[in-house]
């Protein structure tokens, strides 16, 4: 590397453009400092301050404009590239993080574990994911991804007094390391191929997305390039939970604490799609290989996710497997984006709808979860509507939106993906998607049935049944507000998308 290279990097450093990530990092450190400084009685404040800080960052970011805080194009020597899509992914990750912080407050209150570290690591992961969505270079992509993944290892096994949580952590560690190494191997192959100066389009910095795309365009049948693409896509497929790389999902989702499960379900999936959307552009010269591959994966993912979820009674495993099928629907969007421009926006809409719906569902689960939330089954949802109507409503709206029932946001997301898929002439995938939706109704309906419909239970009249604690009794204003945002957002986005209309149009 010549000095010119570093000079170029130094010249293109625009620190202002990554202010949100920097602010998150500072906030994360501040939380640790506060734990030392503040008296023990005030420690309960720290999670609230974390949420407040994130809300401020999100607010500033949203008011600052829709494209990279006023910066567009590449920066940091081509490491990052700012775009409107990237900005929306930033907001997506930050929004997820705020909900997860709230869930963390609810779940950790029932525990005697250290609390502040959880929020610290959460903020670091969020910052990393935000950078990941804007990565324009494989080095940046890998470093950001690993920062997030290492954080995930800790958060999955956070309940260190619980064997299931540790087991899940170990499984995630092994699977995560495997997927990271596959991804890295793919990146190395691409580096090897692209740095070959003897070939047209070879460059000294082949890991830059633009350079790599040029190289692949010049050598579309390069064997190393193809293999590299295959491995990189496989590595990402692990993160999204695409068939056949979904094996870790049920176990890890079940064992992880509920906030972490939510983070995995929403943010990890979102991150995968952020990467995938960027990389489909990079790999566009190889589209005759890429899109058939993705199509097969999408069909298998939808079918597997839905059929595997049919017999699940453990709620967290069920949500995990339903998430697998959602990944399949989103993949259809990615494939459609090849021919239909606004499909990218449809994916983002779907992700935001998924975020809101999942937030509602996981909030309810966090309140229902007892000491051990890994064994939460459908029976535990019994008569939820009677025990706490507010949580019942939140669950119904969340599940309804996940199932894609109008007039909820999830339906609009599915509709946009369907229209995009039809425009892109993906008839086969559309057929699979319809089967998937119909099958999914069965298990989503099972959740609703468990929570709302009365089930006959054996009851001895002489015997007093023990009073069951009312879930969510401790629901405070903040909690109600968080759930309300998710529920109202889901309903409103279902029939009135005007604020997003012009954005959707691209």
């Amino acid at each position, binding site marked *: 590397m010549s000095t010119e290279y570093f000079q170029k990097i130094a010249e293109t450093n625009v620190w202002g453009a990554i202010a949100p990530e920097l602010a998150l990092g500072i906030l994360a450190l501040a939380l640790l400092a506060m734990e030392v400084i503040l008296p023990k009685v005030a420690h309960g404040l720290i999670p609230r301050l974390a949420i407040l800080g994130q809300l401020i960052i999100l607010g500033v970011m949203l008011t600052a404009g829709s494209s990279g805080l006023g910066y567009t194009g590449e920066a940091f020597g081509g490491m990052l590239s700012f775009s409107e899509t990237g900005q929306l992914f930033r907001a997506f990750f930050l929004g997820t993080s705020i909900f997860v912080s709230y869930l963390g407050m609810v779940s950790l209150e029932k525990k005697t574990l250290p609390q502040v570290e959880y929020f610290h690591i959460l903020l670091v992961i969020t910052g990393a994911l935000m950078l990941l969505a804007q990565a324009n270079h494989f080095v940046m992509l890998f470093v950001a991804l690993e920062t997030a993944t290492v954080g995930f290892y800790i958060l999955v096994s956070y309940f260190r007094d619980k064997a299931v949580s540790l087991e899940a952590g170990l499984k995630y560690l092994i699977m995560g390391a495997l997927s990271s190494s596959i991804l890295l191997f793919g990146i190395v192959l691409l580096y090897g191929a692209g740095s070959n100066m003897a070939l047209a389009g070879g460059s000294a910095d082949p890991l830059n997305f633009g350079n790599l795309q040029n190289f692949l365009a010049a050598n579309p049948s390069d064997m190393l390039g193809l293999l590299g693409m295959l491995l990189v896509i496989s590595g990402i497929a692990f993160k999204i939970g695409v068939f056949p790389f979904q094996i870790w999902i049920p176990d890890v989702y079940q064992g992880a604490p509920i906030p972490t499960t939510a983070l995995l379900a929403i943010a990890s999936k979102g991150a995968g799609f952020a990467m995938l959307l960027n990389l489909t552009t990079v790999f566009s010269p190889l589209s005759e290989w890429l899109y058939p591959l993705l199509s097969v994966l999408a069909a298998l993912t939808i079918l597997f996710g839905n059929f595997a979820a049919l017999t699940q009674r453990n709620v967290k495993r069920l949500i995990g497997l339903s998430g697998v099928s959602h990944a399949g629907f989103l993949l259809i969007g990615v494939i459609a984006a090849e021919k239909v421009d606004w499909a990218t926006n449809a994916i983002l809409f779907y992700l935001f709808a998924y975020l809101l719906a999942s937030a509602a569902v996981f909030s309810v689960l966090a309140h229902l979860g007892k000491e051990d939330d890994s064994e939460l089954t459908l029976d535990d949802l019994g008569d939820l509507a009677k025990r706490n109507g507010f949580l019942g409503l939140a669950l119904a709206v969340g599940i309804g939106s996940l199932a894609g029932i109008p007039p909820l946001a999830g339906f609009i997301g599915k509709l946009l993906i369907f229209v995009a898929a*039809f425009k892109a002439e993906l008839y086969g995938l559309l057929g699979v998607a319809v089967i998937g939706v119909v099958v999914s109704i069965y298990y989503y309906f099972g959740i609703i049935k468990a929570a709302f*419909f009365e089930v006959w239970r054996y009851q001895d009249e002489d015997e007093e049944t023990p009073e069951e604690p009312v879930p969510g009794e401790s629901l405070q204003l903040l909690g109600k507000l968080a759930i309300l945002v998710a529920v109202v957002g889901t309903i409103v986005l279902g029939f*009135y998308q005007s604020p997003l*209309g012009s954005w959707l149009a691209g």
Partner: protein
Amino acid sequence: MNDFASLVQLSIAVPIIAAFLTLYVGKWGRPAVQIVSVTGFALPAIFALFLWGFYDPAIAGDYAFVSKMDTGLSIIGVSLHLGLNGIGLPLFVMASVVGLAAGLFAAQSKAENLPRYLFCLLIMQGGLMGVFASIDLFFFYFFHELALIPTFIMVGIWGGRDRNYAAMKMTIYLTLGAMLSLVGLIAIYVKSGADSFDLITLKAHLAEAPLAESVQDYAFGLLLFGFGILVSLWPLHTWAPLGYGAAPSSAAMLHAGVLKKFGLYGLIQVAVPLLPDGLKQWESWIVWLALGNILIIGLITMAQRDLKQMIGYSSVMHMGYAFLGIAAMSVLGVGGVVFMMVAHGLTVALLFMLSTMIHHRTQTFEMDEMGGLSKKAPVLSAFFVCAMMASIALPGPGLANFWAELSIFIAIYQFKSWLIYAAVAGIVISAIYGLRAIANVFFGEESEEFVESQKEFAVSDMTWAERVPALILIIVMFFIGFFPKTVTESLNDSLAKEAVYAQTEQ
């Protein structure tokens, strides 16, 4: 003619607003809930009758009372475009009248958790009013789903025997039907190239450049089977008798009376005019399946011992005539179908309501265990005899169903003369089960079971609270029976404007 457009909007909005108010006033006791909910049902009925009076086909153009609003999905050519034409108006009025009767009946019922029950029913009513007033195909579908979802919940929570199984089966069947028709609608949207879900725009566009025959073929197939499941086309009907048997009476009234007509309405208003070649391709399918409805289901109806199941099956059977009328593709046949949809909606709703009243008195739905009720409840028996006579289309002035079936039969005869024999066989079948039901329930000796149950439950005649909703239905039924012109004039006018129907007129 757009002066009263806001009344159309209000007819949709009022029930939905009233639904939420009903939940809110729940704490003020039963009378408050009843007043709010009945207002929510009565206002749309008043508006609809008023609009009916003001509709003038001479100056209506294509649609009257038109309003248009952008909700943010302009990217896929969707806007909230409301209006009524001669086909939609009678159904719109019928929906409001049946809704009022169902609402009055529900408001004085002993349903547990009355505010939530009325909430579901009012949301359903809002959706129903929207279905027949939508010019935009997306909202046409959207309002249908809005009305459909509460049905599942009502069956599952307030249903009778087998409610869990029935709710699940209905949900899966109807979701499949809805998904198929959604894909069919998307197919029309994408393939037409009009870039709009607006029916008027689509019609104009397709009149210029009709779709290729192969496209019409599969799009019509999707719509036929999608709508067919929703209308209980044989052999996809199995959800209907089961669901109606389990559904609480008001939900069964609204679903069998009104919501089920969505599919037929969709075929008449959307599928056939937009895809005329598609209908010709599928013509023989429709004819044979419709014969299955009339003859096979007719025989099954005769074998029923359960009164509510019998009414459910008879409503499935009548859909066969509707499909035959549509296949005839003439103003006479299709006009007869629309007229029958109105008349059948009123009578089947009345029958479901009366059968519940019978159940209150005999504590059973088994017809073998009934008998001699007319001595104890002469008014009830008069209503029931009247409704059953209308339902089996006994010739006689004032029975609207007779006019409807008569014109369908003439159209069938012009279309394929041999079909008339099957249709006449159907008439005989329905006369047998109808008259036998009347005889079993009301006349003859009191059965042993009935005598037994009278010892515990004193049997009285219809109260005024029961008479009012029944009277509303019967008065409207007789009105259109004596003055069919009030419906057919504008209906013929709108149908004659559709080239498809007009050109086959003999």
